């Protein structure tokens, strides 16, 4: 935890510096007759972020926060597995939307989560993975008239059938 806290503060300080630099693309001072320039507000706020990071580092140095005096690891193997399996699953879900459509990605995500992470039965997994995306289709495309991403062309036959039902 101790090493993690200062590393994170360092990373955030770098991000703050990047934001400060980016803010200077617009004037950061006072322009007569126009008031503060467009970069003024984000620049000084980024300075605030940077100073906060310095203060976080100072508190870390003095051992004033729980993490700065903790010898425990950031996460045990269960924690890392959770982040990898669940966070990775959500990332893959979003990546798959452009390939198999939103509804296809929802179905695959349910199969992955319920069957492989939750160890639920195939019957329950398939029931949820099929019924829920169809329900979402009727809600968004039918009731709310919001078109979700349809993925690559091979998903089109599915959408043709479904649109025939709602229109």
């Amino acid at each position, binding site marked *: 935890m101790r090493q993690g806290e200062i590393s994170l503060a360092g990373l955030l300080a770098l991000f703050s510096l990047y934001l400060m630099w980016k803010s200077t693309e617009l004037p950061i001072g006072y322009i007569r007759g126009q008031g503060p320039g467009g970069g003024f507000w984000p620049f000084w706020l980024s300075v605030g972020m940077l100073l906060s990071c310095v203060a976080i580092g100072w508190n870390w140095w003095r051992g004033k926060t*729980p*993490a700065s005096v903790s010898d425990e690891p950031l996460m045990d193997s269960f924690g890392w597995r959770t982040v990898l399996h669940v966070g990775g699953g959500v990332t893959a879900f979003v990546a798959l*939307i452009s390939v198999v459509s939103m509804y296809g990605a929802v179905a695959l995500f349910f199969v992955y989560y319920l069957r492989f992470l939750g160890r639920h039965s195939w019957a329950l997994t398939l029931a949820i993975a099929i019924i829920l995306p169809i329900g*979402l289709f009727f809600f968004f495309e039918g009731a709310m008239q919001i078109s979700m991403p349809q993925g690559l062309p091979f998903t089109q036959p599915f959408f043709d059938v479904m649109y025939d039902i709602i229109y």
Partner: protein
Amino acid sequence: MEALSFLADGVLVALEPLNLVLILIGVTVGLFIGAMPGLGSVNGVAILLPITFLVPPGSAIIFLAAIYYGAMYGGAISSVTMGIPGASTAVATTFDGRPLALQGRASLALVTAAIASFVGGTVANVLFTLFAPLLATMALSFGPPEIFALMLLAFATFVGLGGDDIPKTIFSICLGLVLATVGFDTISGEPRLVLFEIDGFLRGIGFIVLAIGVYGIGEMLWTIEQTRGEVTTTNPKMTFKGMVADTKEAVRRGWKGTWIGSILGFFVGVLPAAGATPGSLMSYGVAKMVSKNPEEYGKGTPDGVAAPEAANNSASTGSMLPMLTLGIPGSPTTAILLGGMVIWGLTPGPRLFVDQSEFVWGLIGSFYISNIAALLINLAFIPLFVWMLRMPFTILAPLIFVLSIVGGFAASRSMHDLWLIVIFGLAAFFLRKFDYPLAPAVLAIVLGPIAEPTMRQSLLLSSGDPTIFFTRPIAGPITVVAIILILLPAIKLLRRKRSERAA
């Protein structure tokens, strides 16, 4: 008297069939969300906001406010039956609610919580009806310096009263405000902070993207990592006869805590950025302090359940007051409601009472109806909610992830924003591991688009002289209070050091 007539009209609006159905659904969903460990009103409102575009704005906010209300009632269910607070607002409820359940008095604890919540909600509704029009009338004369001073006060409250690590709180506020500036500079019209030259940032970063990332993805990851162990659920035996007896006992042994929580909760809730969690914890502390038997607290006294439960309901209504009258959210949930109102094309603030009177009073009327609905649904379906709490988290979690992603797309229609939701979610998880408070960032991204223009307009008015925030009769005192609040932690530290040295 005028307020009463507006209120009567508002109640009629709330009783319209669509609104009534939405109140019932909202309260039920809220009860479930509040009861579910790891999910609170803020998660529910953030995740479900995108689907409210189906109904008119007035009905949408009534639905979301009903979720907020229901969640305050629901938090007690898991606090009592599982010993895990359903939401941070129900942390104090576990102190006495869980011991009561372990003594076989879960029913008494739940009935006490429900009645206290009802009284807290009712008291807050009456106070709201009295204060809201007065405050709104006063706020009508506010110019940019006054509005900016109020924004400053909202952020200062987080720093001074938040209780979190101060540099991390300030970082979170600044981060939210900077993220709000991404896109185009509203005054000069030039592109600004187009991060890593990715075109998607030209559209800015919507508050809902950050809110769903933080509360839909980040907090869920956090909860999954934290609640790895098995949880023991106490099944309350609820019979009609038993509930009548429990009601009598709850009134007899919990009235003091109920009143303390109702009054204190409202005023803590009104403070910008304070909200229901500190309100309920403070009420528990005060109820214990003034009790004749403080030693009973923590061992299972109905007063210890009543005080935080009355307070969290009262505070949730209280936090709506600055949101509707001044355009400043009193809690993270109201920050999201405020963002929703902007998306629906409504401008929160004092003009709302003049321009959208039916909307405002319909919402206020819905508070009264939601309060009654929440009490009845809660008491009638406690066994059902307890049964639902046993649903494996491995079913609920993917459902929430899917709702977050699908809802996020429905709100923004952009894959760029979906990736941002994932990135914010993962970042929020790690930031939370190191105790960075994230509610200030969500509040800041909502208030940023109001704070920046008012600051720039104020400085333009004064030709760049910042003393404008100190010299005007209303802005001045607010700015001074905000600065005192920002300095409060440093003052406390100095006083402590001095007293240590003296000792």
